[in-house]
């Protein structure tokens, strides 16, 4: 089992981190989320094309980089920490589904960064469904794909990522029951990696603020009430990171452990991320309640991510089944 990133993974992290810090700092995130497309297409183009991240886990022979889910987790942790708007997660989930089910044509465009795609997750709802080039629907053991169909943008709690009602269905793109089952577990790991980033960034924000905000002539970070809450949040972060690394390792190296690891990852990360984001917001005091402060964007992303793959009890029930309780 490997729970510590390799030097190569650390390099990848640094590269993504530097890119996002330059191309999509929080003021840019705010401009993007209020813009008509809801994200900066240029940032997405560079992320997908220049950095090749939409094809990261796509095999080389199908146009991708052929990296593992441990690498993908490192990337999603950073896009999560940066609250990157746009269809990167949606397209990544689509790439996972198409890779695991052996699809090739759509995947080529996704891996090349020229096609955006999304997966219908819940009835007729899809992340970035209004703007995706291709909408994928899981129907039993088949993956359906369509580029047409009605789309209707939804209002969302999380202003940094859009959702839409879409028309499910389309042509059969691939058939693979096992591939679909594995893809669903990989979705859980991918979202958990994003949640880890949101959690970490929320904690970092309040730690930094508590070192400079003064109340009663002391920085608030010197009060035990604040310190101890932050220590507990740090404990949560340590466990969250350990679980995400484990689940990503299982995805790459221990397929038999993946279902349990994936359910564990969603069951832990969903709650953990919202609790830390929520604690971070509250400890910011009144400033954290303003629209201009970023705390609420993390809080809302955390809540949206917590229910993205279904309410938390779904993952807990799955874990119970896998544990044969």
């Amino acid at each position, binding site marked *: 089992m490997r729970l510590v990133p390799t030097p190569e993974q650390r390099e990848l992290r640094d590269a993504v981190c530097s890119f996002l810090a330059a191309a999509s700092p929080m003021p840019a995130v705010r401009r993007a989320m209020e813009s*008509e497309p*809801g994200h900066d297409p240029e940032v997405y183009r560079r992320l997908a094309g220049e950095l090749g991240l939409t094809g990261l886990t796509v095999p080389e022979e199908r146009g991708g980089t052929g990296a593992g889910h441990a690498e993908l987790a490192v990337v999603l942790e950073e896009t999560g920490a940066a609250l990157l708007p746009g269809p990167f997660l949606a397209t990544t989930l689509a790439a996972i589904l198409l890779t695991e089910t052996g699809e090739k044509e759509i995947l080529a465009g996704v891996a090349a960064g020229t096609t955006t795609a999304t997966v*219908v997750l*819940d*009835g*007729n*709802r899809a992340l970035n469904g*209004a703007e995706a080039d291709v909408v994928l*629907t899981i129907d039993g053991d088949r993956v359906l794909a369509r580029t047409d169909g*009605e*789309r*209707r*943008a*939804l*209002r*969302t*709690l999380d*202003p940094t990522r859009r*959702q*839409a*009602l*879409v*028309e*499910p*269905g389309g042509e059969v793109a691939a058939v693979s029951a096992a591939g679909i089952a594995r893809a669903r577990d990989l979705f859980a790991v991918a979202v958990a990696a994003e949640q880890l980033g949101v959690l970490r960034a929320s904690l970092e924000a309040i730690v930094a603020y508590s070192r*400079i*905000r*003064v*109340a*009663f*002539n*002391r*920085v608030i970070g010197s*009060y035990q*009430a*604040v310190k101890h809450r932050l220590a507990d949040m740090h404990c949560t972060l340590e466990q969250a990171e350990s679980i995400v690394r484990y689940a990503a390792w299982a995805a790459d190296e221990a397929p038999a452990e993946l279902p349990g690891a994936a359910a564990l990852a969603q069951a832990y990360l969903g709650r953990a991320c*919202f609790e830390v984001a*929520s604690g971070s*917001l*509250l400890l910011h*005091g*009144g*400033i*954290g*309640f*303003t*629209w*201009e*402060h970023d705390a*609420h964007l993390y*809080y*809302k992303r955390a*809540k*949206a991510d*917590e*229910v993205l793959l*279904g*309410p938390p*009890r779904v993952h807990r*029930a799955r874990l119970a089944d896998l544990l044969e309780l």
Partner: protein
Amino acid sequence: MDLEEYRRRARTWLEANAQDGPDGRAGGASDPGGVAAAKEFMAKLYDAGYSGITWPAEWGGQGLTQAEERAFAAEAAAFTLPTYVFSIGLGMCGPTLVDLGTDAQRRRHLRPLLRGEEIWCQLFSEPAAGSDVAALQTRAAATDGGWVVDGQKVWTSVAQHADWGLLLARTDPDVPKHKGLTMFIVDMHAPGVTVRPLRDMTGRAHFNEIFFDGVHIPAENVVGRVGDGWNCAVTTLLHERLSIAGGVGMGGQKDNPVAFEALRRTADTADPVVRDRLVELHIRSRALALFNQRLAQETKAGIFPGARGSAAKLLLAELTMFQADLATSLAGPEAVAWIEDGPGDASPGGTGNGEGPGVGTGDGAGGDGGTAGGDGGLAHAVSLAPAMALGGGTNEIMRNIVSERVLNLPPEPRTDKNVPFKELRTSGEAPR
């Protein structure tokens, strides 16, 4: 009249006179018609004897006790009264003037306040002075016949409608911070006062920022003594906590989409785990409701709740977060994404501008219950929930109060008590 009879009469009056309409909170800023209607209702309330229930009769009140006030509030909780815009005046500013104002101030201000003719706001908090109110920086400099005020306030509810404000400002930066403050009555229509809506995390402007730029205040508008503003503010804050605990100006739970009664209708109670979570919410809701009722009964029996009201406020803040979180977690995806023109759509901060073609709610092919069943109500609730834990004192401040004033534990060591204000640290500075 005994309390039950009082309560019965209040209910009868409310049934006859309270419309089941908005409380003036939503859209108030852009809806002067709403404020006009609220003023009309307030005049009726005053004439019926339900405004200023505990205030002295001499200044327009009813001279009754907290027990009657709580009885009325308990009955009013079943209605949605348009009194929000008056809540600061009734709960905080007015009671402060009753306690500390000059007779001239009381004569001029209290009756118009109670009748809803004039609206009040409270001007204490500043960007760098939240929990630590006494660290405020707004300056009031003495001048001919009065004072000149410069500075900025924040988190001011209903300021956009306010005629008067209760202001706390620094009149002497050379003495320790608690000693250099003075309280004033400020005319919100005076030159130099700018009110700017403050957009909060719900996407709405529940609050305002207020800028003072050379605003003149006449000498007779000082409340209490010059330099005694901290003690005056303590009086105001005490009234604030009592009014929150007493439910003054607070709506009921009846339309709250994250309260137990709503969730029992919407949640999947076939799942025993969901049922267990709802039981937990019921337990916590009942526990707090019973505690509030007990405090009310003790008050009636002459036992002053004092700082125990802060325990009720803390519990309410935690329950508010808990139930919003629970409701969204139980609902799942539809809690966080919904069709924009749903009836209760309530989050202008959300994205999605209707540019897509029309896809109906029910016409998706592949899902069972996977349609956008939410109407934004849960999303709004989870966005608004932190307000209860931040306004009127954070949870940490409440815990300090409960531990120090109820349990009599010693305060933290303080380093800001005997140092001139101008020598204190401010946020963002390195430690001295």
